[in-house]
């Protein structure tokens, strides 16, 4: 599969943004952080560096086509599931259920998507995993916290595997007049959602006054939320040429996914509070774990997938 010309144009734009961000980070560092003691700027520069790596990885996977994207998101699901299940309630009796989640359910979900088998991948985890995993767990006879154990495991699979896999599932959609370009839907989704996260951070740092959810996420403000979602939705409208959508449709789609992304971030923050942690992991410098970076994409991907599928195929 060769990448559509639009994809290369978008990549050029993203690299331009990263270059500008890197220059700003460098100048800020020279002016305000000569001794490396300004935590905000250190974190900003760590984030920008990690963005370079993430963009490079995603770009390469997308150039490699369907298989590349499937492998990348399969690995991301693995890393996210590993972080999530580290925090869930479990007993020794759950060993087979957990092993099955990692080594059978996760790969099968991506195989079904690779086959383009909509009737299977859209129900595999909500139906088959949902019913069979508790059976596997109950056979070992341990009833202590049983409901909590099976519910948290199922939740981990829904978020980290089922929802995340709807990003590569976009490649299976056959949209009339859009043949061979479905990779652009992924680019559009990932770009708008991540751009919204970045712009919420930027607007929040510049203007943020009123906290939107002080108990859940003290860094999120109304100014950041409104500014970030609107900026990213407008950016989405300007990217309509990537998509099968008209400009106003692209704006609405971007609005929906950025809102889902925002609330997804809140939900995942609530879980972190509940479990008493600050970050899901430590593998992405400046960002935390994979779940920290993916939470908004994961919440928006299935909705974006089904809206697109319903209205455009």
């Amino acid at each position, binding site marked *: 599969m060769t990448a559509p010309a639009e994809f290369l144009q978008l990549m050029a734009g993203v690299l331009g943004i990263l270059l500008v961000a890197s220059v700003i980070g460098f100048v800020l560092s020279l002016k305000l952080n000569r001794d490396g003691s300004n935590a905000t700027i250190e974190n900003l520069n760590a984030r920008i560096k990690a963005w370079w790596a993430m963009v490079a990885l995603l770009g390469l996977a997308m150039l490699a086509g369907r298989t590349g994207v499937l492998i990348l998101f399969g690995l991301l699901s*693995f890393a996210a599931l*590993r*972080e999530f*299940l580290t925090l869930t309630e479990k007993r*020794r009796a759950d*060993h087979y259920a957990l092993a099955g989640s*990692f080594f059978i359910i996760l790969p099968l979900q991506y195989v079904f998507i690779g086959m383009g088998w909509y009737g299977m991948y859209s129900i595999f985890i909500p139906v088959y995993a949902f019913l069979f995993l508790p059976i596997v767990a109950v056979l070992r006879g341990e009833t202590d916290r049983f409901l909590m154990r099976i519910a948290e495991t199922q939740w981990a699979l829904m978020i980290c595997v089922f929802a995340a896999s709807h990003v590569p599932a976009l490649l299976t959609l056959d949209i009339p007049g859009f043949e061979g370009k479905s990779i652009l839907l992924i680019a559009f989704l990932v770009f708008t959602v991540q751009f919204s996260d970045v712009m919420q951070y930027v607007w929040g740092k510049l203007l943020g006054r009123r906290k939107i959810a002080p108990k859940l996420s003290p860094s999120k403000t109304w100014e950041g939320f409104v500014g970030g979602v609107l900026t990213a939705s407008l950016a989405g409208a300007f990217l309509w040429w990537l998509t099968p959508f008209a400009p106003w449709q692209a704006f609405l789609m971007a609005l929906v996914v950025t809102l889902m992304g925002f609330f997804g971030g809140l939900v995942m923050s609530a879980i972190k509070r509940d479990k*008493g942690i600050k970050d899901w*992991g*430590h593998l992405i410098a400046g960002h935390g774990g994979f779940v920290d970076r993916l939470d908004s994409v994961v919440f928006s991907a299935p909705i974006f997938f089904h809206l697109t599928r319903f209205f455009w195929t």
Partner: protein
Amino acid sequence: MHWLRTGLAGVAGTAIAFFAHLVTAVRGIWDGVEPVPAQRVYFANHTSNGDFVLIWASLPPALRARARPVAAADYWLTSPLRSFIGRDVFRAVLIQRQAEARVDDPVGQMAEAIDKGDSLILFPEGTRNMGDTPLLPFKSGLFHLAERCPEVDLVPVWIDNLNNVMPKGEVIPIPLLCTVTFGAPLERAPDEDKAAFLKRAEAALLALAPGDET
């Protein structure tokens, strides 16, 4: 053939460390001690067969090359593969757990490794902890080793979550995040008796466990 065995052991060691990182994304937390090549006895809690692999994988390569686990000969000499991994890859100091089967004195074997300049990884509980208490009472080996080698740092090391990755009797590891916390070396108190020393060592190790352990 010696160079072939050494080469294979190097490759196997790298592969095992890579696998440990793949499954657990293990992170070393240096809390009160720095990852510098000082000679040390790392003493850790023991819940899983993978414990010393995890400590080993979380050490920087330069320290890893000089850190030898103290392990049970009755386990590691039972098959050619285990013997290769135990002797050649990890360069384990293999001791007899059953006193009646002993030819060598375990503390003497450990002291010998230290005299050669190596560091040791030691599990003073003596066996894997399968119960609900976070730590079993320490065996006296650590005390005798401390008396024999007063100049070596005794570094407590808490391994967290590996018991969920690889519970006893299971073959397939579950990928979950693990941490290995290295604490400040035990202070030496010259006139301390055995019981008091072991109590203090246990407390220093337990102090590194994350608070919300269930």
